[in-house]
C-alpha cells in the first residue's frame, strides 16, 4: 500500500519542491511517518467510502508537518484576511511563508463573493485566493454550490456582492485564459467525433472564426493528448473510450488551450485508478508550468493528496486553507464558524480574523455529515 501511494504522490509532489515537510516521498515511505499519520488522522477515516486511498495513510502528521509559523498566524483564517483587505501589501502570511510572490501572481481571488441565480442565493460569501501554479479543491456535498462557484468563475452566473477576480480581470473577460473540464459522463457517447477532434476543440478560440485548425494547432493538440497518455487513441471515436479515458481527453482539450487557470468539475467521479493517475500526473505538470487549478470533488483523499488548499462549501464557505487544517473532523461535520459567513474561521476558540466586524449574529451552517455524502 505504502509504496504504491508514494508512487502516486510522486508527480504531484515533485511539482512543488518548495513545500518540504508535507507529504514527501520520504515521509510517505517511512513506516514511522505512516504510523504517525494513521494515529493523527484516524478520526478522519469515518465514512470514507474509498478504502484504496486510505486517508489515514495519506495525511501527514499535522504536528510534524505544520511549520511553527502556521500556528502563529492561526489556522485557516490567514488567506481570508488577506483577501478581505486586512493585508495592505497584498501578501498573505501564507504566501510569504511559502516564499511565493503574492498579489500579481494570483490566478483567482474570491473576495466575499455571493452568487445568485435570479433571486435564489446559491452560494454566500466565499473568500480565498489561488496563486499561479497552485491547486485548490472545492469540497462539499451535492448541491453545496461547487458547480455554481465554477460557473461564477467562468462569468456564467452573476456575483451579486463581493467580487471574483480572474487573472486580474472580471470573470467574463478572462474566459480565453480559463480552461474548463466538464464531467465526461455528461457528454453523448454516440457523438461522431474522434478523440483528436475533441482535443482540437480546445484550440478553437485561438484558431478564431472561419479558419480551420493549422499544423501548429494539431501539434498542440497532439502534445496535450500525449500529456494525458492517450496519444495512441487519437483516431478513435470519443465514445469508444472508457469513462476515465474520456475524462483525460477532456483534460487534454483544456490543456491544448494553454489556460492559466483550469477549472475541473468532479473529474475523478467513476474514474479508474490508471486514469486517475494519468489525470493527476497531467495536472501536476500543468501546475509546475504555473497554471492554477481548481478541482471540485467529493474525494477527500484526493484533495489531500493533490491539492495545496481546500475550500469547504455548503451554500456558504466554512473553511479555506491547507488540507491538514481544513480536512478536520470538526470542520467536515460543519462546526459553526464564528459569525455568519466568516468562512475560514477556526473551528473553535478565538475570533476569525476575517470575520466582518458587526456582522450578523452567529448562526450555524446547515449541518451535514460527511459520512452521508461521500
Amino acid at each position, binding site marked *: 500500500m505504502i509504496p504504491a501511494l508514494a508512487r502516486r504522490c510522486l508527480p504531484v509532489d515533485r511539482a512543488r519542491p518548495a513545500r518540504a515537510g508535507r507529504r514527501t516521498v520520504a515521509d510517505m515511505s517511512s513506516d514511522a511517518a505512516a504510523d504517525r499519520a494513521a494515529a493523527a488522522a484516524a478520526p478522519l477515516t469515518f465514512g470514507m467510502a474509498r478504502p484504496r486511498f486510505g486517508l489515514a495513510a495519506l495525511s501527514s502528521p499535522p504536528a510534524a508537518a505544520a511549520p511553527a509559523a502556521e500556528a502563529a498566524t492561526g489556522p485557516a483564517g490567514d488567506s481570508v484576511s488577506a483577501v478581505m483587505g486586512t493585508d495592505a501589501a497584498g501578501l498573505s502570511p501564507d504566501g510569504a511563508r511559502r516564499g511565493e510572490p503574492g498579489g500579481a501572481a494570483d490566478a483567482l481571488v474570491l473576495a466575499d463573493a455571493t452568487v445568485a441565480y435570479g433571486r435564489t442565493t446559491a452560494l454566500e460569501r466565499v473568500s480565498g485566493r489561488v496563486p499561479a501554479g497552485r491547486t485548490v479543491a472545492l469540497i462539499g456535498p451535492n448541491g453545496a454550490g461547487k458547480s455554481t462557484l465554477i460557473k461564477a468563475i467562468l462569468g456564467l452566473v452573476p456575483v451579486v456582492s463581493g467580487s471574483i477576480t480572474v487573472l486580474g480581470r472580471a470573470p467574463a473577460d478572462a*474566459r480565453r485564459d*480559463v480552461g474548463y473540464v466538464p464531467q465526461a459522463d455528461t*457528454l453523448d457517447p454516440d457523438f*461522431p*467525433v474522434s478523440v483528436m477532434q475533441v482535443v482540437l*476543440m480546445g484550440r*478553437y478560440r485561438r484558431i478564431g472564426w472561419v479558419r*480551420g485548425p493549422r499544423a501548429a494547432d494539431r501539434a498542440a493538440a497532439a502534445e496535450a493528448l500525449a500529456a494525458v497518455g492517450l496519444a495512441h487513441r487519437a483516431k478513435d471515436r470519443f465514445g469508444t473510450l472508457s469513462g476515465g479515458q474520456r475524462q483525460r481527453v477532456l483534460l487534454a482539450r483544456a490543456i491544448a488551450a494553454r489556460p492559466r487557470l483550469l477549472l475541473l468539475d468532479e473529474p475523478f467521479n467513476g474514474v479508474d485508478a490508471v486514469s486517475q493517475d494519468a489525470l493527476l500526473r497531467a495536472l501536476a505538470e500543468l501546475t509546475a508550468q504555473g497554471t492554477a487549478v481548481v478541482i471540485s470533488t467529493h474525494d477527500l483523499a484526493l484533495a489531500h493528496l493533490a491539492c495545496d488548499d481546500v475550500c469547504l462549501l455548503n451554500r456558504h464557505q466554512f473553511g479555506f486553507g491547507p488540507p491538514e487544517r481544513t480536512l478536520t473532523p470538526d470542520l467536515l461535520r460543519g462546526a459553526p464558524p464564528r459569525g455568519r459567513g466568516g468562512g475560514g474561521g477556526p473551528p473553535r476558540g478565538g475570533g476569525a480574523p476575517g470575520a466582518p466586524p458587526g456582522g450578523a449574529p452567529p448562526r450555524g451552517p446547515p449541518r451535514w455529515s460527511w459520512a452521508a455524502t461521500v
Partner: protein
Amino acid sequence: MTDLLVTPFERPYLARALVELLLLGGLAAVVGVFVLLRRLAFLTDALTHTVFPGVVIGFLIGGQDGVFPGALVVAFVAAGLFTLLSASRRVGEDAALAILLTGFFAVGVVLVSRRSSYTADLTTFLFGRVLTVRVSDIVATAAVAVVVLAVLAALRKELLLVAFDPRAAQAAGYRVAALDLALNLAIALVVVAAVRAVGTVLVIALIVVPAATARLLSDRLAVVTAAAVGLGMAAGWIGLLISYHVSVRAEVRLATGATVVLVLVAAYLLALAFAGARAGLRRRAVAAAVGPGSAAGQDGAAAEAAAGQDAGAVDAAAALGRAR
C-alpha cells in the same frame, strides 16, 4: 440503361426538376448533419409547419412570386422564436413548441380555406409540385444554397463544439444562443427553398433522413456528411425517375416529392438492417472467440449471438431516436 436513367431529362421540365432536387437534396443533407448533431429534429419539424402560413400569405398577396418572400419572413420569425424558447430551457418547452406549430399551421389552413381552389392549393403548399419548378425558383434555391453553405462552413467548428458540449462552448465564451440562432436560420432558409419542390411537410424528410442514414453507416463526421449529401442527391434523382416511369408506363400518378421521401426512407431502412447485421456479426465473432473455452459452450455462444442481435435492434432504435 441510359434510356432509363438519363433520357427522360431531355424534357426541360424534368431537367429543371432534377436540378432543383439535386440542389435541395445536397443542401438539406448538409443542414441535416448539424440538425442531427444538435438534436434539433423536432424543432426542425416545428419550423417546417410554421412556415406554412407564410407560404399562404405570400401567395395571397403576390401570387407565385410572393411565396418565397412570404415563407422567408415567417420562417425567420419562427426561427427567432424557437431559439428564444430553447434558450430559456423551461419546463414545457415541448408543449410550447407544439402549440406554436399547430397554431401557425391552423392560421395557414384557415387562410387557404377562404379560397375557392382550396384543395388544390393546400396540396401544392403542403407537398410541393416539383415538375412545375421554374428557372427563377432554381436560381432562388441556388442562392439560398450558397448562403447557407457559406454560413455553415464558416461556423462549422463552433457549431460542432456547441452540439457536442454546449457547456464548454459557453465556458469558452461562445454565445450558444447566437450559434443556435444561426443554425435555426439556416434550417429555416432550407425549408423556404424547398417549399416549391417538396412542400412544407415533406422537407423535414430531406433534412433529417439522409444524415440519420449516413450516421448508421459511419462514425466519422466527414464520411457522414459526404454520405448524407450523396444520399440526398441520389434520392432526388431516383425518386424523380421512379415517379416519371411509373406515371408514363403504368399510368399511375405518383407525387414526385413523396416518392423522393419514400426512396429516402427505404435507404434508411436498408442502412438500419445493415447496421443491425453488422452489430450482430460483431457480437457473434466475440461470442465465437469466447464461447468454446467456457463451460457453457454452445449455449453461451448462442445466447451471446442473440444478445448481439438484440443490441443491434437497440442501436437501431437509438438511431431512430436520434433521427426524430
